[in-house]
């Protein structure tokens, strides 16, 4: 099996797992799913510079050819950003769990936000 096939199925599997987990209704699977999706995109970006073996990304004397260095820089930036984002959303879900006692992601309908009608004035504090 070629390397291209392996990379493509790997990216596909990561994406599928990520999307499935994001669709669940608890915070932990959603966070893990987002991580999977970001791994998938990192590998995807990396392969976008074409797959090459044993080629240097920076100028060196006597190199037969070069691999594209730009996707590697892009992946590095993307990793840093998604790492920070994942840390943020982990802390946020933990904080939400501690404040509400539930890790359910659904947003309950508000009960106290009616526009006041003539009969509801007494309810307004």
């Amino acid at each position, binding site marked *: 099996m070629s390397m291209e096939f392996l990379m493509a199925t790997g990216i596909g599997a990561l994406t599928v797992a990520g999307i499935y987990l*994001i669709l669940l209704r608890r*915070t932990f699977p*959603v966070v893990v799913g*987002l991580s999977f*999706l*970001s791994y*998938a*995109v990192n590998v*995807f*970006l990396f392969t*976008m*510079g*074409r797959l090459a073996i044993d080629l240097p990304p920076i100028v060196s004397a006597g190199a037969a050819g070069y691999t*594209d260095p*730009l*996707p590697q820089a*892009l992946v590095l*930036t*993307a990793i840093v*950003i*998604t790492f*920070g*984002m994942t840390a*943020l*959303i982990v802390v*946020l*879900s933990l*904080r*939400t769990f501690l*404040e*509400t006692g539930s890790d359910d*992601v659904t*947003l309950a309908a*508000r009960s*106290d*936000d*009616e*526009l*006041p*009608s*003539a009969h509801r*004035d007494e309810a*307004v*504090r």
Partner: protein
Amino acid sequence: MMNHWLIIPVAVPAMTAALLVLAMRHSLNGQRILSLVATTLQFAAAVGLYVFAGDGETRAYLLGNWPAPFGIVLVLDRLAATMLLLTNLLAFGVVIAAIGDWDKRGRHFHALFQFQLLGINGAFLTGDLFNLFVFFEVLLIASYGLMLHGGGARRLKAGFHYIAINLIGSTVFLFAVGAIYAVTGTLNMADLAMKVPQVTPANEALLSAGALLLLTVFAIKSAMVPLHWWLPPTYGSTSPPAAALFAIMTKVGVYSIIRVYALIFGADAGPLAGIATPWILPAGILTLVLGTIGVLAARSLLDLACYSLIASMGTLLMAVGLTTAAGLAAAIYYAIQSTIVSAALFLLAGLLVQDGKGQTRLVRIPQPATLFAGFYFLLAIAMVGMPPMAGFIGKLLILEAGRAASYTTAVWTAMLVTSLLLIVGFARAGIRTFWRSPRAALSARRVPMRPILVIAAMIAAVAALSLLAGPVMDDLVATAEQILAPQRYIATVLRPRLASDLAGE
């Protein structure tokens, strides 16, 4: 000689925010002064850049003086300058409204505010697709912090939704960038505009996949149906000054749509010319209709503000979808007024509802009630587009552009029917909020003075926009023509020396 003013809207907030976090942590008053000074400075710079861009010339700023397709480039043209001016005008108002009230209900408000400005200003100025991603991330990270400012269970839950949808959006952005890079080998927007027409038939599919994935990302940012549903819980749960500043964030999405699909996938893009055009107009009409239904169903003033923002985004996208110079000029005019009106509406709703940690219980109308009812009335007629406010002129221009672009039936029906329904929705909410039994209105609640002044100034700004519609539209028509003729932009970015020689002749 490069024009170093271009870096100011990016450099000033970056340095200010770092200083606020590191050196001013313990002094709220110091933070306020520094933040106010920095915002004033950015506003002055935005005015200066608008004057620069007014000569119709496009200016490029090469960071580190690396030549364009290889280095990072900032580009100033009329569109970028207009959006910068709007952003920093809004920011100036919001920072004044937040001082003394909201900025002490949590930590680091001003630092987050400056980071947010850094992201927005950068997104408007950048000439590079990957840097657009980076500035999107900067403005999003700051907006997560601002959105959660003040804390509370409901805000945290809504914040989780907001962060999750935007993380997915960022991932999709990276997929799109990767696909475009794989085909063209560049991410500089001007260079892309040169490379996209030369795409081989074998690579066409991958490139159009990338282009349309990019549209999905911008659709999330600009609350385009069916990707609009994150907006009401987010903006409705956050603090009013943050929501007021967020009114510009949806415009960042529309700006990106205009920039990318006029410059890179515009009329000259060969097989991929106008790839997004069939989607934007119908999606805009749907957004307008769904936003209007939301306004009719709104159960609180904040919901009303959120859904009217979605409806205004629909109007805006509809005008952008016409892809004519008249449509674009009308869209930018409408964007300016709807941003200011939405922001003022959020600030007003924030004064009328009590913050129970992200809850939106309506409190008794503070005295003098007439003042607040008057504000609401003026903002409502501006939002639904009735004379004499600028919303009327904006909608009129869009109707006219729709007729000229021979989309009369769709645009006129959508616009006129939804405007009527918006009037009904706003009138109903106003009656139920302000026309209550006098007993309930008797309450001496102190409201902070600054937000009231800011709302009054914003209403005055919209009225001025209406009075000065003639000269403003002259500028905006020139802007739209510049957007639709990107050759100058490309030449400026890729051959700065040559372009400056040409200009010197």
